[in-house]
């Protein structure tokens, strides 16, 4: 047994190979963290007031009041659910052609660029910001919410669908192309079977995202359960707010579990 080979081995550093740089970076980060903490200006009086309010809020949660505002709550819920379903359906219908157009391996370059920019615009604007714009344009209420969620759905589904199409098994598409199939036949026979399960899964996932978002954008005036929640908090009716939050949580959980069950079933 020769002993000329070393018996220890350590993984060499991969990113910063110079030891001095590593130390400098760590010290710099520590200094920055200390300074950053030092610059936080805490108003302890307001914190204690807030804690008290928080306590009342938690108490409201523990004794949720479903009944006294039930009419408002049920109306908000129906609005939110309507918004969610309609915007998901319309959004998916619009995003399928855009997603196909945004797949580099299927369309000529100009079409690809146009569709990718639509996706980019939709994804770069956060739902709340879009909602503020659309509420300003179309007024308060669920129609602005429907438009907001549709717009957001397009960016989400179209991007993920396009990425999925770009990653398909090209040889299957090549085989269909070799039979003399037209572009639409290629889409129907080679692309659709490969991406369909994922598209359905994404659509279901988007459905529950849309419900959660509908609660958020209601706060800026786009109708639905969010608006009801906002009103309840504004009136310091924490027991009603608690009831609304519990309902939202319950619905999101039901949507989550049923959609994951459905997705599993579809595989």
């Amino acid at each position: 047994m020769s002993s000329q080979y070393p018996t220890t081995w350590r993984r060499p550093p991969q990113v910063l190979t110079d030891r001095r740089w590593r130390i400098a970076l760590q010290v710099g980060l520590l200094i920055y963290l200390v300074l950053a903490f030092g610059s936080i200006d805490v108003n302890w009086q307001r914190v204690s007031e807030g804690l008290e309010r928080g306590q009342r809020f938690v108490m409201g949660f523990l004794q949720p009041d479903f009944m006294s505002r039930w009419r408002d709550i049920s109306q908000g819920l129906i609005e939110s659910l309507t918004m969610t379903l309609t915007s998901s359906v319309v959004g998916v219908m619009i995003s399928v052609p855009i997603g196909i157009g945004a797949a580099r391996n299927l369309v000529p370059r100009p079409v690809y660029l146009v569709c990718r920019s639509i996706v980019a615009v939709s994804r770069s604007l956060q739902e709340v910001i879009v909602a503020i714009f659309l509420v300003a344009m179309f007024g308060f209420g669920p129609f602005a919410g429907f438009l907001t969620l549709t717009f957001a759905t397009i960016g989400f589904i179209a991007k993920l669908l396009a990425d999925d199409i770009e990653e398909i098994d090209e040889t299957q598409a090549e085989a269909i192309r070799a039979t003399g199939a037209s572009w639409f036949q290629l889409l129907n026979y080679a692309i659709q079977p490969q991406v369909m399960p994922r598209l359905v899964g994404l659509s279901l996932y988007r459905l529950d995202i849309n419900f959660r978002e509908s609660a958020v954008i209601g706060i800026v005036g786009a109708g639905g359960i969010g608006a009801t929640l906002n009103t309840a908090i504004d009136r310091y009716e924490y027991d009603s707010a608690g009831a609304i939050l519990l309902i939202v949580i319950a619905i999101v959980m039901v949507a989550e579990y049923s959609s994951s069950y459905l997705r599993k079933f579809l595989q």
Partner: protein
Amino acid sequence: MLELKSLSKTYRTGDAALTGVSLQVPKGQIIGLIGPSGAGKSTLIRCVNRLVEPSSGEILLGGDNLVTLGRRDLRTQRRRIGMIFQEYSLVERLTVMENVLSGRLGYVPFWRSFLRRFDAVDIQRAYQLLDRVGLLDHANKRADALSGGQRQRVGIARALAQNPELLLVDEPTASLDPKTIRQIMRLLTEICAERNLPAIVNIHDVPLARQFMQRIVGLRAGQVVFDDAPAALSEDALTRIYGAEDWDAMRKSDTEEDESESDTRRDLSEIPA
């Protein structure tokens, strides 16, 4: 039947995959295309149905030049050329029947293929082809439920559903076991003989090419360096195609493989059912 006239292909990266390849394939002849990896075998057969666009030269299929075709004409010409792939290239989530019927896509309008309403004749033919390749019972299974050999049979049925005048076959047996390889090669050659179909078969296994092909074309660095009957494939010729190597050793190991295979078969037959 098929004639290539000084066909060249240079990829955008500047790699010359084919330079001045001329070849004539008469009706009913099976040609084995051999050569080292990167010699341009795959490019050559993909140029014929224009999955790869040739840079220059002519491809004549029964008198029609395939190189200058527009989109629509290309579609009608492609359906005359059946193609069989290395990894079968079936659409995995479609049924076996849909895969076979997809060979008809060049003939039917979109709405018919979309609704899966193919002509009665097409459906009958598809069943007949599945029967020919021995998969009649598997018509409604999904393609990904089949074994490698079965998938390649479906691939053959799909190519034949086009009612082709020429078969392009790209490494048909690269991912199969030795026994299935021989079954598939036998099926291919039988079918070509039945229909008097010409075929170009890319094949990297020299002994296999020798056994099943009627003519062998050797490619090296994009040029034809050998074109003759299998019997003429001497050691010199192989060296011309592949470069220097001890061919006898290779041939010997191959006969060993054959022997071990027949051994196994004997062993298996001795096991009572």
